[in-house]
């Protein structure tokens, strides 16, 4: 008899001979009875239609749950993306803004730049620069007067409304007031570009423009501008600009009466003592002064 002959028998796979042999065995009747009886058994009832309806009813809920779960996360992601853009955007915006230093009347300030260059800012002046790419581009915008001690490095440029001052590493003073532009080089070499003309200014030389007129001046014999040591020094400068400087240093208004403000003044006044400063200005020119609270009147000797 072949392997698993009971299975083969139930499946009608036995040969005629095998079937004959099997039928003659004692167990055949029992097997036959079990096989017949078991095929008459019944599994519990199962309602296919009800099960199918249940299955379809179960479907959408499971899909819905998935959609709901995803949504809040996506929304959150969108908000996060917007916040990220705003934060990075404002970060770069604020970084690209220029640094600004400003002095009021009767005020001096000094500033150390990122490369250790130093700037002294005289009264009523303003400068701005971008510290971000300072090493690549040493450029300062100036309105007013400042004295620079420039560290060695790449080209250093001072931009003013009157012209460009370019250096490689030196000490120089730039004054840019209304109708007045002066560059004084104390050490090294300064290149001044004024009205598309470039002038090389070696140490100990000045470049002065008053009312668009280039004026030859003598070399200063100091190593730094006098205002650094709280004095204002002039060499053949029209009285008008001397008075304006005085006004800046003492935050005061100056009125003049019967005075020619175009006369040239050579001299120094202190920025610390107003009486002394007025005397310094007035005595050599035979001018009298009357000091009031926030006002000074300068008048000629023979006037009241």
């Amino acid at each position: 008899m072949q392997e698993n002959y009971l299975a083969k028998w139930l499946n009608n796979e036995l040969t005629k001979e095998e079937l004959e042999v099997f039928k003659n065995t004692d167990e055949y009747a029992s097997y036959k009875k079990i096989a017949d009886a078991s095929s008459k058994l019944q599994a519990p009832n199962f309602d296919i239609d009800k099960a199918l309806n249940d299955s379809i009813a179960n479907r959408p809920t499971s899909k819905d749950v998935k959609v709901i779960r995803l949504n809040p996360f996506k929304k959150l992601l969108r908000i996060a993306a917007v916040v990220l853009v705003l934060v990075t955007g404002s970060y770069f915006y604020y970084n690209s803004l220029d640094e600004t230093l400003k002095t009021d009347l009767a005020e001096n300030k000094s500033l150390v730049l990122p490369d250790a260059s130093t700037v002294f800012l005289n009264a009523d002046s303003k400068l701005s620069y971008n510290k971000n790419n300072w090493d690549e581009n040493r450029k300062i915008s100036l309105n007013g007067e400042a004295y620079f001690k420039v560290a060695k490095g790449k080209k250093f440029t001072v931009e003013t409304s009157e012209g460009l001052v370019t250096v490689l590493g030196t000490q120089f003073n730039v004054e840019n007031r209304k109708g007045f532009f002066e560059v004084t080089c104390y050490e090294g070499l300064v290149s001044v570009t004024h009205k598309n003309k470039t002038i090389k200014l070696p140490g100990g030389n000045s470049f002065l423009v008053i009312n668009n007129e280039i004026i030859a001046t003598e070399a200063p014999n100091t190593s730094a501008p006098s205002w650094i040591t709280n004095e204002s020094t002039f060499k053949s400068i029209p009285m008008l600009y001397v008075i304006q400087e005085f006004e800046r240093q003492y935050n005061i208004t100056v009125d003049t009466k019967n005075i020619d403000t175009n006369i040239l003044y050579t001299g120094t006044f202190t920025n610390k003592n107003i009486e002394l400063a007025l005397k310094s200005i007035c005595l050599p020119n035979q001018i009298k002064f009357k000091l009031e609270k926030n006002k000074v009147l300068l008048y000629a000797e023979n006037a009241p």
Partner: protein
Amino acid sequence: MDSKTDNVCEEQVYNALFKANSKTIFNYIYYKFGNEEKAYDAVQEAFIKLWENCAKVTPHKAKAYVSTIANNLYLNVIKAEKVRLKYADKSLAISNESPEYILEEKQFHEKLEKALADLPENQRTTFLLNRIDGKKYAEIAEMENVSVKAIEKRMHLALKTLREKIEGI
């Protein structure tokens, strides 16, 4: 249903698969564990999975797919209960047979039921799928994920064990 263009995601194809196979899956799990409620849940679970993965399962793989899921659902999780099967032979109830014969038949049925409950789960499942549901050995092999020869072996052993139990050998 074996056409390759058929898609299980199509309502009609899915419904046809459900009608053709859900009863078999129900019986299959019932023969294994003897618990109607669990068998019903297994059918639901398996066919929901089929719907969710309808794009990945071809119609002719669907039957093996749902039986595998139904089978895995309770794998090592629940204890088999006693399988209770009704005797469907109506002739017995309205027969003119002698009381002795009826009594004998009743006793035989009880012995058979007990012997079936005592069979190893895989032999009982295979045997009943063949005897009650008329499943071919090849079909059972597909559902159980074994060879036809293994199913034949189970059938042979099931029948042999049943006789020994009933006759008290």
